[in-house]
């Protein structure tokens, strides 16, 4: 079902990122080229300090590269301003974090509604879409619960609902199962797989665990600020 004709969503060209200046300069990325197509499910792996988190921050438009170009749906977003990057995140990206990052003392429904508020969606439609998103992660009956009243797995599912409620182009997941036990991790992965399969949602996920990476159709390995091409595992029938 994957083929080369699928549109390119993300294209990184010679991306570098250097922290600090002068003799204290610390290169985190040394020239990354990466293409991600619509509907892919990519697992990003690598030891800590390999640059995968830096790369994820750049992919997520939370950070800008030191040099190189980042084409998001053909638009170069490498040198956009803070607010322009925020607009890219608002309209095209969804985030899931290891620590769930839900607003405390705020109901599940309101957490899911949050991105819709910033999109200026009227309250009735907001409720409707947020309820649908919660239902799609199997939490329709928990909309009044606050994160403190939910288990870790449920919290991460709320976070997934919040990430997909805007129908983003790309879902960025930063170690989404890092804080969960195996059973809960499988639930989360199955949800992500389902969204990828059923809605054609592009998923980029950082993980340490090969078990979780196995859910992805493609694996990218980072080492010392570079993508280890040899390890770029591509599903059969498709070349990079």
């Amino acid at each position, binding site marked *: 079902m994957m083929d080369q004709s699928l549109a390119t969503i993300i294209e990184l060209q010679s991306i570098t990122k250097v922290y600090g200046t002068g003799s204290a300069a610390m290169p985190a990325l040394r020239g990354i080229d990466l293409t991600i197509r619509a509907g892919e499910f990519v697992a990003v792996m690598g030891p800590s300090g390999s640059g995968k988190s830096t790369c994820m921050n750049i992919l997520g438009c939370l950070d800008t590269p030191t040099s190189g170009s980042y084409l998001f749906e053909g638009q170069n977003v490498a040198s956009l301003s803070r607010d322009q990057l925020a607009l890219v995140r608002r309209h095209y990206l969804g985030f899931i974090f290891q620590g769930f*990052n839900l607003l405390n003392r705020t109901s599940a429904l309101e957490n899911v509604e949050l991105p819709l*508020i910033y999109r200026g969606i009227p309250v009735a439609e907001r409720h409707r879409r947020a309820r649908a998103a919660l239902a799609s992660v199997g939490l329709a009956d928990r909309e009044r619960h606050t994160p403190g009243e939910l288990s870790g797995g449920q919290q991460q599912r709320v976070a997934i609902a919040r990430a997909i409620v805007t129908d983003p182009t790309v879902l960025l997941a930063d170690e989404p199962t890092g804080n969960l036990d195996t059973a809960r991790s499988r639930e989360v992965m199955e949800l992500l797989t389902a969204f990828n399969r059923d809605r054609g949602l592009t998923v980029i996920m950082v993980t340490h665990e090969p078990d979780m990476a196995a859910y992805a159709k493609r694996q990218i390995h980072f080492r010392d600020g570079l993508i280890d091409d040899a390890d770029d595992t591509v599903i059969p029938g498709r070349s990079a």
Partner: protein
Amino acid sequence: MLWETVILAFREIRRNVMRSSLTILGIVIGVAAVITLVTLGRGATAQVAAEIASLGSNMLQIRPGQGFRGPGGASGAAKPFKEKDVTAIAQQIAGIAAVAPLTMRNGQVIAGNVNWSTNITGSTTEYLFVRSWSLAAGRSFTDSELRAGKSVCILGATVKKELFGDQDPLGARVRVSGITCRVIGLFAAKGQSSGGNDQDDFLLMPLQTLQRRIVGNDDISAIFVSARDGVSTAKVREDIEQLLRERRRIGANQADDFFVRDMQEIMSTLTGTTRILTALLGAVAAVSLLVGGIGIMNIMLVSVTERTREIGIRLAIGALEKDVLLQFLVESVVLSSFGGLFGIAFGLGAAALGARAMDMPFIFSPGIVAVAFLFSGGVGVVFGFFPARKAARLDPIDALRHE
């Protein structure tokens, strides 16, 4: 979006009721102080104005001498006025409603075996008009009584009380500085003046009677003039000065040997003084508002630090800098406006109590309430801006990592 932000601000504030109340305490105290002081100040101003109005606000007092307190100020030092001066003023000055010549003297008044020392004033019926006196009983002087210098008198409320108690004095005879007078009227009480003098402690008799039978000359020690409504007292004053300078043959380079006191002018001086005092007190109170603002800034900074992760989440899912800025700004404005509302309530309450305690009018002025409310909101904007900007400029990556 703004509405959502306001709701969010209310929710944040409700989450920390204790802290929020302590935070706004400074604003509450500041606003309450401003409202109380300004309201009481307005009351005092109004009271002073009312007292002066009871003297006769259109009144001009003309006395010989060079002022009340300056050198040679004693009225006796300069040439006194005569009947002709009064007639000249009445006939030649435009815009005058009434002219009352008067002469005063302290003396004993005796009724039966009761003895009271009071101010004996000799004047005409015009005096009642000029000083806005009304009669509680009896009648005023007739023209013939005035012309003939009949021995009749009208008692002030205090004199009546001291000499007659609850008895009806009308028609009774009293001895006034050695002459026997018939009581023909009673003044309605006016109470104390702003200076603390008992305005009711006096006795009025025809000018002629006092001059001929008690003082023994035809001097007039003061002339009270009442300007017509709508006529500028300053103009009347000028005209009178001009006329009297001519009549008293004062050369161009010579100083006046009389002076005209304009009650309107005194009123504006007095109300001006209370107004300045009010403004000063208000300024002192405004300083406490400032201190309250710093308290808000402090708590907002703490709040921004505490909610760093929340800010990170909001930024990550697409909040713009201005969205976050607005969120915290609205929160601080809502906080400080709450402080303003409570402060206004407390301030008005305190002013009402204070006005009652000090026997002053309570004057509610919507203007100052609106200003205080807007000002407290402004304090929220000014002191909330720095913390809000700090929040808005957070780096989303760092903010998300914040523990």
